[in-house]
């Protein structure tokens, strides 16, 4: 197990584990937004922008792990 192969493994595992949380978070977020739009179709314009904002926040966590992968 030399340093180079450990580095390759770590890159893969970092991105794999780091992507689980944001994926679940974005899925829950958009699901709740869909539910809210389903209850009240007129409010879709008002719901869309905060949903996008929340999704960008959650995605940023995945981007952090991607930056770690690039740094390794």
């Amino acid at each position, binding site marked *: 197990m030399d340093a180079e192969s450990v580095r390759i493994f770590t890159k893969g595992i970092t991105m794999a584990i780091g992507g689980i949380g944001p994926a679940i978070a974005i899925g829950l977020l958009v699901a709740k937004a869909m539910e809210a739009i389903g209850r009240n179709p007129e409010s879709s314009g008002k719901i869309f922008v905060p949903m996008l904002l929340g999704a960008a926040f959650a995605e*940023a966590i995945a981007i952090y792990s991607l930056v770690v992968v690039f740094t390794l």
Partner: protein
Amino acid sequence: MIPPIAAEPIAYLGSFPITNALVNAWIAVVFFVVACWFLKRRITAGLPGKFQNFAEAVVEFFLGYVDQVTHDRARSKRFLPLVGSFFIFILFSNWLGQLPGTGSITVTALVHGSIEKVPLLRPAASDLNLTLAMALLSVIVSHLLGIITIGFFKHWNRFFAVGNIINGFKKGGINIMVGLIEAMVGLIEFSAEIAKVLSLSLRLFGNIFAGEVLITVLYSLVAFILPLPFMGLELIVGVVQAMVFAMLSLVYLTILTEKPHGSEAEHKQDEIGEAHGTGHLHDRHPSLA
């Protein structure tokens, strides 16, 4: 051939490296300066021309959005220059990075001690220096405007709540605990400011750089039809990231320029108001006085 994380220098001005992301940023800046110069030459208070009409529509649109966050026209007008500039600059430089030629037109340059081909253009926000500078600017300006708006000591008390501890000791009992806990929360808020800078810069950098790497890898696989949907995705990501950066800056500015809640002065004002019979209960019937 994946682009490296650090933008490659393609020329040197003395000892200052001019990187390919810097070239893109300068193209964006020159575009805006020229556009604004044209606008200023023909601006009239009478019937507006097409460009002035468009610019006014854009400003009205942004002002409406900023109003929805601040609920205060005076503050919206104060924040609009910075927040609107962030949005338009980041949007334009992200979209500029999708033009064909970015990443493929190369020049030979001396990079890391070896002569090799280096791309001439690279999306401006894929350089961590630019995003870090913008994030620092955003957070520092929000603190400065907070100090200017509510005064230095109130702003200081948000983070290092010395006033709360002293008042807690004066009242004694459970208030000592409450004062200490609020002081600890203030310290955590301070570390949250550092997290704000890091998250703002890394979010924008990560999205745009990852898009650049994705498109480069796709070009090396199948150069012709395959990258198209991903370039469309990059356009959308460019809009969303510009919006997120601008809106987050706006939210930070708004939060730091609001009066802090639960301060002692507010409670005293309410008590005095009740004692003199001029409290809020009487606001709706001025004629009865």
